[in-house]
């Protein structure tokens, strides 16, 4: 299965390395404990540079979703329709995510989701969020 991915040089960053090993980690602050996304050299809450990584609980709620029916890129021609989601993680961060290809789901804003990391090769995986128990 082909999928759009970050350029190769980004895959050596901790966010992608953790995903490639099968878990979603969030950039977090070692001083106040807050998580943030996308990764950043400074904590947006207490402005500390002392940041690190911690595993996400994987629990989230659906903030919004959209169903792409028209392909906006040649590589997506055989993928439409596909679902794009906006998810709020328990840790207080928001991620753009999606539903894995081929999975049938019934979505509504506010529903509980859980993280499902899908591996594409040994360096690249993505954090999808699916209805709890799906």
């Amino acid at each position, binding site marked *: 299965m*082909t*999928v*759009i*991915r*970050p*350029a*190769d*040089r*980004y895959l050596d*960053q901790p966010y992608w390395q953790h995903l490639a090993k099968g878990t979603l980690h969030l950039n977090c602050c070692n001083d106040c404990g807050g998580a943030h*996304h*996308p990764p*950043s050299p400074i904590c*947006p809450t207490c402005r500390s540079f002392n940041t690190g990584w911690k595993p996400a609980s994987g629990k989230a709620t659906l*903030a*919004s*979703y*959209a*169903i*792409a*029916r*028209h392909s*906006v*890129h040649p*590589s*997506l021609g055989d*993928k439409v*329709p*596909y679902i*794009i*989601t*906006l998810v709020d993680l328990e840790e207080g961060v*928001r*991620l*753009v*995510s*999606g539903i894995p290809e081929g999975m049938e789901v019934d979505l*509504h*804003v*506010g529903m509980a989701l859980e993280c499902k990391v899908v591996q594409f090769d040994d360096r690249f995986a*993505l954090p999808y969020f699916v209805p709890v128990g799906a």
Partner: protein
Amino acid sequence: MKTSIIGLGQTEFSKNSGRSELRLAMEAILAALADAGLEVNDIDGLVRYTWDNTSEAAVVNALGLPSLKYYGETEFGGVNCCGAVAQASAAIEAGLASCVVFYRALNARSGVRLGRGERILTEQNGHWVSNEGEPPGDIYSAPFGLLVPGQHHALYAMAYKERYGLTSDQFTDMLGGVAVTQRTYANNNPRALLQDKTLTLDDYRAGRIITEPLRVYDYCLETDGAMAMVIVSRERARAMNAKAVDVLAAGQYIFPGSVPMYLYAKRAWSLAPEEAGEVLFGKAGLSPKDIDVAQIYDATSMMVPIALEDFGFIGRGEAHDFLTSGGNGPTGALPVNTHGGLLSEGYFHGLNTIAEAVRQLRGESPNQVAAETAFITLRGASSMILGRA
């Protein structure tokens, strides 16, 4: 602010201009100066978007401008349409320049198309990859197939639809109320790309879904062309006896997650913080009920209901009733996008949104309403109030 917009210039809007962006920019700038009654050598300041391909230096060299004392850039594209005017005004009030031209030239239809993913993806080792890592780029969203503004807006739209519990039919009728009303305005507007194409609510409902819940008629028109406007001090505008429209308030607003779009602020159903309207109206000494006409940057139709609520023209969740009862129409409580908007006049990164407000206040709109004041916004990120001089 103590400035005025005294000149508007543009090329035709088209699907294929057949000429370079530099050439288009020159045509628009000369037309704006002629409209203002000024000479090329009067220009001593320029403002533009960072996304514009025609640099200040290119303009100086092409026009042989003797002395450019100030140039400013605002980040991105249309997000800063009012921010660019704020910046020009601030430069004039600070004495950095006396005559500033804000210009935009783009072959957005025949050249690189913003509505397609080619802009952000390249091929690497047989994969399509996103290269935008820092500052927080779209490497975190592109892999999920979220590539273009039209998809970002679909996420805003669904968040709104579900927050207010609108059925699919109610939601369709709400946005249909934007698209159909604006097309009717465009049918009277000789500048509009879609002047000759009518659109009924039934046509709208039958439109193909692009990214659910948005359909084809909810999207703006990628357009070729150029526009420019001339900004001077209010004092100079009065002394020249110019066709002036006064800038009563203008400002920019970024808050966490609001820009770029793929980051998403906390409330995806709202695009401006609560205080954005208060700040803007406070600067002008006006309130929403004092506004006679609104021009709302409508890259998609969804921007209209959200802006009407964010800036207090209507209450939260009232957009369906307002837009399905003609509130935005020519005899409605607040006529909106009376040129046809980006949906039906053309997508000109907000300069045509501003230009229509100027025309309304000059009495030159193809859909003229009685207007002393006009409101303009793009997602709250940049907003402005103009007044008849």
